């Protein structure tokens, strides 16, 4: 059985649906729900059965038989961006909006090939500052601008 795009996707979905089905059994039912025809578990159980069934059908009858290949794709760069976004999520509060966002954008632009330091800073920093001013003063959405150690 060749691992086509559909079959890999089907297998991933099947795994997800099986975990979902397993987790659905952890939903606690209140005593009065035990004998009712529709309770908190009903919909998840029906969906789990449908999901498993459809995943099996996708694996058994793939419409796309093209073999999956990653050649010619910059997977590492994609993963690096995911890590950068996750780091931004962790840093935005302690480092403040201005510093964390400026760093996020500067590193992001550099990762995609911008080498001029002047351009990196001239695009990222004014944009972040003006966005913060717009949100804070224009739309009254406050977000902590400074790092924790500089706050009063």
């Amino acid at each position: 059985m060749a691992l086509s795009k559909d079959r890999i996707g089907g297998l991933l979905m099947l795994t997800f649906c099986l975990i979902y089905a397993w987790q659905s059994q952890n939903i606690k039912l209140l005593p009065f729900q035990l004998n009712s025809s529709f309770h908190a578990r009903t919909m998840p159980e029906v969906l789990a059965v449908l999901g498993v069934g459809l995943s099996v059908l996708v694996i058994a009858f793939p419409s796309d038989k093209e073999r999956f290949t990653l050649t010619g794709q910059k997977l590492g760069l994609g993963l690096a961006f995911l890590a950068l976004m996750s780091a931004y999520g962790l840093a935005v509060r302690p480092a403040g909006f201005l510093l964390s966002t400026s760093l996020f954008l500067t590193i992001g632009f550099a990762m995609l090939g911008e080498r001029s330091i002047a351009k990196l800073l001239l695009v990222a920093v004014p944009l972040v500052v003006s966005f913060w001013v717009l949100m804070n003063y224009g739309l009254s959405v406050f977000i902590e601008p400074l790092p924790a150690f500089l706050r009063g």
Partner: protein
Amino acid sequence: MIDGILIGLSTAFTFQNIIFVVMGCLVGTFIGMLPGLGPMSAIALMIPVAASLEPSAGIILMAAVYYGAIFGGSTSSILINAPGVASTVATSFDGYPMAKQGKAGKALAIAAYSSFSGGVIAALLLLIAAPYLASVSLSFQSTDYFALMVLGLSAVAAFAGKGEVLKALLMTVVGLMLSTVGTDQTVGVPRFTLGMIDLVDGISFLLLVMATFALSEALMAIIKKVDESKREAERKAASELGSMKITKEEVKEMVPVIGRSSVLGFIIGVLPGAGATIASFLAYGTEQRIAGPVKGKEFGKGSVRGLAAPETANNAAATGSFVPLLTLGIPGSGTTAIMLGALIGYGIQPGPRLYIDQPDVFWSVIISMWLGNIILLVLNLPLIPHIARVLAIPARFLLPLILFFSLIGVYFVSFNTFDIQLMVLFGLAATILRLLSFPMAPMILGFILGGMMEENLRRALLISDDSWSFLWERPLTLSILLIAAACLFVPMLSPVIAKMRSKTQDAPSAD
């Protein structure tokens, strides 16, 4: 009714209210254009401003922001394939391919004319039918709503290409599964929260949409090796926009689509809980069916009909969604739910008595819809070349910016950094599924309808004393379910029927 129209005209056409409509349309378009900020965020941001105004002026301002944001969302869907709201997801199916072909100007013009026509026709329908439509909506029961949700979900088969029905259905089920995460609405039992307090309220719709569309689209662009010369050519074509003129043939193609989609969008919009998303998806699916095999194949590749239908329908539905809000006090969508909160804040109780107690509010909102649509057309078309310049930004600057707007759009709603981590996770999953050619739109539809569907099914079972007979005993429910079944099985059977036809045609020639 004539008295009502006169009251509406005298209230809406004051200098102050016209300024509010213009301002609302501009602000709404600007906010709606930013990936991650949709009508809900735009209206929520406007509540403090609106609270300081007279009730009718405040509601007029918020309504104008609503239309502006929907149009702004369409613009970002077409130009950068980043729909900030579900109702403009269907717009990106054909709008973005058109922009990639260098017809961004034409796509934006079609969207503007379609939105305008949809809004104006729906406002006319609202004006004529508002009193009667309230009674029609009142006659709908939970069973009918449930059936309507099933119909909305079965429409995914219409989006799926040849042999893609199974994958589309699987993704719909995944969307429904994601909608079950969080506290069960009826008994308050936590489901699939994995012991995390951040998941108790469920997964945010905005988070899921931004992760599966804007974020994964940007990630796909990063992962795929971009041919810089091709990209340069694409950018040049996009910055030039191409002609904004629409040919006579295209107008001929658009007119019947706009007519049908306006009526469909309005009717769907009137139904509480249905809203602009179902309307846009249904209109897209319906037009694809009607288009026939030749024109139908153009859908998803830059079809004029495929762009005009959801654009008309979502604006018509946005207008229609004011009917249950103003006449029944039931929000037709998330956006009108925020407006309901604002009305209650003014001390106005929306419902059948709104006509009688506060006719100025009721009628001025309806009249302002026309005004808003005219201003949107007058404002947006001349601004299109300036708006489209966003595409002239090089990819190395644009892609991190899209990622930033997506992350911050979600963060600004909840101020919870957990949402950013969850978004990264969904972004990764969506990118993998995109690489494997799995469709994302059915998942979003499943997610939106999941909660409502479960709630209505539960209510229907409660009313019918735990008996499933409601599915076939009520003619309206049964009819909607039969249409849903037809939507689901006709695409599955059509290849078989086509094969049988070709065999019967081949048979005489073989003789």
